[in-house]
């Protein structure tokens, strides 16, 4: 029996595979047994009721898609009355993604969401901060630190902080989040991108710019996970272009303690459970007893440490 469990702070997940925020909803239970997932992650919830962005909201490009869905939200009450009871029937822990335009609002929402049935708060600080000219909180270490500090004070629940890949200061931002009390980091959100229609000369998205996701971004975000994992002591959850078991393992080797699968689900709806099955097979083949042994096991120099012998088993 391979031990698939991983620990994220005080929380033990049955396996390291969970959905990425905004790419998961109840409908997927037609495709997979939800009780097999490591965790549930909701679409980002905001306090205000929002309609989301103008259409078209997605455009595909080689190896991925650019989205400008925005955050259509039905608000807190709807979440508490409908979404929360729905997930209560399942085993995996519920991670609630939240967002807000100011640090104060963020903290208040975190407090409101810290109710029985919610296991983790994932703060999507890759969203625009109106106090910083619309620049995302996670673009800078200073704004990251101040919002995470308030969030930390506002909720007793484990706090995961989701970072943006669009900053040049990622290790600093990661360190700031850790210092301010984050229990884990999610690396990362989408990469700011654009596409233009050659028929009309207009941008392909109603919102002009959007976030790139899917296999196209994997090598970039993998590098960022690697950098963050070397910088902080708290767990890093990898998210960006993971479609296969191999992708998930690569992320874990780079230092991810768990992975989130987003866009891949749009192409292969059972991607998450397929990856979980693949992890078992990979560990069996390589004689790895615990999937957690993969975390950060990338070898930078030649190593003759005995306990790492499974990395290249003798032929």
């Amino acid at each position, binding site marked *: 029996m391979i031990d698939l469990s991983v620990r994220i702070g005080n929380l033990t997940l049955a396996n390291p595979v969970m959905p990425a925020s*905004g790419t998961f909803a109840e409908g997927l239970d037609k495709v997979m047994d939800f009780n097999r997932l490591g965790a549930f992650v909701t679409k980002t919830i905001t306090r205000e009721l929002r309609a989301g962005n103008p*259409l*078209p*909201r997605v455009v595909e490009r080689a190896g991925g898609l650019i989205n400008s869905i925005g955050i259509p939200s039905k608000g807190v009450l709807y979440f508490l009355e409908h979404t929360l009871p729905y997930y209560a*029937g*399942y085993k995996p822990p519920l991670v609630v993604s939240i967002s807000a335009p100011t640090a104060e609002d963020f903290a208040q929402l975190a407090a409101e969401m810290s109710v029985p049935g919610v296991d983790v708060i994932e703060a999507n600080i890759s969203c625009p901060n109106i106090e910083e000219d619309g620049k995302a909180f996670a673009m800078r270490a200073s704004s990251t630190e101040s919002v995470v500090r308030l969030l930390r004070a506002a909720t007793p629940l484990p706090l995961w902080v989701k970072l943006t890949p669009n900053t040049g200061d990622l290790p600093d931002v990661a360190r700031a989040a850790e210092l301010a009390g984050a229990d884990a980091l999610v690396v990362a959100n989408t990469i700011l991108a654009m596409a233009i229609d050659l028929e009309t000369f207009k941008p392909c998205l109603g919102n002009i710019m959007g976030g790139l996701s899917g296999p196209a971004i994997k090598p970039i975000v993998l590098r960022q996970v690697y950098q963050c994992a070397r910088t902080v002591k708290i767990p890093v959850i990898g998210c960006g272009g993971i479609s296969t078991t191999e992708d998930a393992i690569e992320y874990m080797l780079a230092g991810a303690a768990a992975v989130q699968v987003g866009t891949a*689900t*749009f*192409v*292969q709806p059972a991607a998450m459970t397929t990856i979980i099955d693949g992890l078992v097979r990979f560990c069996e083949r390589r004689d790895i007893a615990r999937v957690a042994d993969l975390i950060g096991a990338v070898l930078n120099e030649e190593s003759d440490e005995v306990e790492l012998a499974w990395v290249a088993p003798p032929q």
Partner: protein
Amino acid sequence: MTIEQTISQAGRATDSAAPWTPSVVGEIAEVISNDCVNAEYRHLVVRCGAVSASAQPGQFFQLLCPHSDGAQPFLRRPMSLYGADPVRGEVEFLYKIAGAGTRGLATLGAGDSVDIMGPLGAGFTLDPSLRHIVAIGRGAGLATLAPLAKAAKANGTRVTAIFSARRPELVLSVDLFTGQGADVIAVTDSEGTSGPAHIERILRGLIAENRCQAFYTCGSSRLLRVQQRLAREFEIPGQVAMEQQMACGIGLCFCCVRDFNVGGEIVSRRVCWDGPVFDMMEALP
């Protein structure tokens, strides 16, 4: 099904006895045939598993299109169910070659594999007590309406189908409808018979003969408006299958939203999940 309804169905209890089974699958189907129907459309028949073959009229599949000419469609493409045979384990699609994805589909031949995902969405509901319904479609919309003919026949419901196309040779699926005992009226742009005024006259005639107890429609906002007007005037119910650019097809991404008028309130719904079939009176053409 609306978002509200689906969410309020509580999640499966941890200790529930019934084992989970999928009701939507992504699977590799085998192409039985993929023939040209006319200059623009192809008819794809595939062999598939029981879940896919249980698809109902108005539901759709998301097809992963083969790469062609260096183009690599990343997302799946939505295609309405054109026919399903649960006994033989087959589903059929009727598609128009529009761009990279459908060009890729056109390269498939018998024996090839194609990755299909479905059945998706909420299809048509057919009240078995109806004696006579009208199906009105244009373009690829006819593909969506086609399985209704068989389902209506099974209920003993008569169908009058009004098919709209640019030219007579592009009118599709007439045999499929007449084969199920439906009356088919073809209207075309080239013959000047497809205008809303003419269609309204045809519909008023059918209503007067009590041959229009419900509308089923797809593929034209112009025709939708005509039907909505008549439906209001004569209190006739109706259903419309809608399209919108989609990504996931299963309600996750909120890219295919449209506005609906629900009792005077504008409500945003996901075409892939809350539809693609909606109450005709709530649709905003």
